[in-house]
């Protein structure tokens, strides 16, 4: 019960090698255009990669390597796809939508209907059975769509931002539903929301520019991000460079001192590494602050924005969170040259 997937689509700069273990839910995250939808479409059979091979539970999905031309059409793959929009068939009632999968598998009408009612009950939507999709709210329709996907008995469930189109009232309910139905189920969920990854997935895969930038258990990735996208998700400042004695030196000569996360790595200079620190640890000064062990970077403010009860001061890719009072005292405006100061003790440095 595993998925092994390796495929490349030259036209989209997509080249991904991914495995999903039995009963494992993997969250796929990344910026727009990173290849998340390409990944799902290739697995579901809606897109034909240029090369690669994939297997699900020992069954070949496609094998396009070394002159092979094996290609299993979507309806023989057992990979139900649930998209951002529910896409319920508008001419069928909710229960007929849910029984569509079993009916397509050849289950007699009455049995398929019984199964559909059971799945509708499982997502707490049995009272919606007779309704047409046009009579359902967004949250109700997505619940019926979940039942429809599960009723098809997929070996692998593919979820493409299933909560993105829902309003803030229905999303938590659906998230709890996913938490329940994804437990012990083999699934891939594409999401923009770090909460989905934390709550629903065992592992997170970060895609950037059609390649896997980083992957690992969700908590580990968020605590020790190795890609700027993951650092952004975790809300951390991220300075990539090369390890250099007591810190990281960036390409343009900036040096960030920090404490050694993996004892010994700082003593092997020249390796690629990152310095990571939370915006809340950064103070803003009008003049360069001295006194070791502190880092002081001259920066130009690009943006000021509210962030909870703080003001987030952005300067390029770096951010500092300060109180509104401090911001007013300093008279901060975009375009102003200031110094970001962070204690070395608040900076984690590790190799990548």
């Amino acid at each position, binding site marked *: 019960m595993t998925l092994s997937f390796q495929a490349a689509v030259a036209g989209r700069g997509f080249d991904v090698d991914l495995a999903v273990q039995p009963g494992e839910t993997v969250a796929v995250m990344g910026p727009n255009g990173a290849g998340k939808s390409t990944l799902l479409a290739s697995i579901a059979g809606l897109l034909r990669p240029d090369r690669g091979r994939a297997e699900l539970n020992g069954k070949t999905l496609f094998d396009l390597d070394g002159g092979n031309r094996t290609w299993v*059409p979507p*309806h023989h793959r057992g*990979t139900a796809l649930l998209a951002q929009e529910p896409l319920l*068939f508008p001419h069928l009632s909710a229960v007929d939508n849910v029984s*569509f999968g079993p009916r397509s598998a050849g289950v007699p009408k009455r049995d398929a209907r019984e199964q559909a009612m059971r799945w509708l009950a499982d997502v707490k939507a049995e009272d919606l059975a007779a309704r047409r999709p*046009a009579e359902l709210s967004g949250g109700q329709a997505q619940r019926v769509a979940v039942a429809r996907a599960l009723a098809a008995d997929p070996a692998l469930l593919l979820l493409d931002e299933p909560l993105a189109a829902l309003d803030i009232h229905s999303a938590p309910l659906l998230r709890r539903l996913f938490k329940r139905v994804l437990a012990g189920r083999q699934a891939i969920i594409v999401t923009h929301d770090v909460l989905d990854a934390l709550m629903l997935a065992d592992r997170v895969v970060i895609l950037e520019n059609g390649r896997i930038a980083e992957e690992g258990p969700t908590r580990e990735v968020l605590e020790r991000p190795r890609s700027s996208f993951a650092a952004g998700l975790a809300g951390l400042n991220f300075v990539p460079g090369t390890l250099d004695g007591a810190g990281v030196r960036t390409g343009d000569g900036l040096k960030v001192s920090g404490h050694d996360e993996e004892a010994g790595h700082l003593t092997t200079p020249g390796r690629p590494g990152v310095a990571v620190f939370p915006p809340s640890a950064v103070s803003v000064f009008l003049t360069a602050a001295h006194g070791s062990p502190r880092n002081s970077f001259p920066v130009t403010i690009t943006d000021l924005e509210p962030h909870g009860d703080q003001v987030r001061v952005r300067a390029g890719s770096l951010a500092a969170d300060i109180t509104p009072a401090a911001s007013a005292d300093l008279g901060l405006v975009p375009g102003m040259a200031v110094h970001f100061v962070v204690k070395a003790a608040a900076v984690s440095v590790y190799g990548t």
Partner: protein
Amino acid sequence: MNRPAAPRTDRPRTHAAAYSGIPAWVRALAAVAAVVVVLPLLAMMLRVDWARFVPLVTSEPSLTALALSLRTSAASTLLCILLGVPLALVLARDSFRLQGLLRSLVLLPLVLPPVVGGIALLYTFGRQGLLGQTLEVLGLRIAFSTTAVVLAQTFVALPFLVVSLEGALRTSGSRYEAVAATLGARPGTVFRRVTLPLVLPGLASGAVLSFARSLGEFGATLTFAGSLQGVTRTLPLEIYLQRETDPDAAVALSLVLVAVAVAVVALAYRQPGAGRRGRERTTAATPAGGDVR
């Protein structure tokens, strides 16, 4: 529906119209356009000899022609559906070389003079035609038969069905089909249970338009099938023939075709949603005036 008593201020009496921004001269030209279409029909109706209308319309040649027209138009509409649905699907959803060229060629009969279509058909299925000799060997003689009438009608009517169905297929997109396939439905099942029901309104209006075009077919029919009473003389041909001998009969029969055309247009271009089956309940999302039956 109760309309509140008109208030004294001179507000528009019907529902307040949004600002349209149409210049007065455009309105005037639009009125002229409407007159160009409506006036000839009106003029014809003024010439109808109502006293003799029923006997003229129910005379033996008239009824024969009407029956033949209805029979052949029904047959060609069926043929259009049978061949046009696959063609529209391939044009809308597939991608292959020369697809654009095929689409243009299929639409050609829309703009081609029907008599040219008739000549083309004659040189395909006629005795001296491309396939005619082969068919002759098989004992099939198509030209100047009822089959020729159906073929001529199908030739001119097929684009109507293909165009309206291809539009409907493009509008509905193929996302439902993709979902259906990932739920385990094979292509045949997807076509039957998802694609066809979704584009049924487009298919229906396309079929109605094809039927109307078949019913009005004249030029290609006359060229390719001739004008044999009871065999190839459809209602438009009968009208043209009667015009020489009995103009009153021609006018009366024309009125019958106008009536059929009005019914067809009403069927094909009824308000979207007005004919939907009424199991839907009103929800907050239903726009005001939504049909509840």
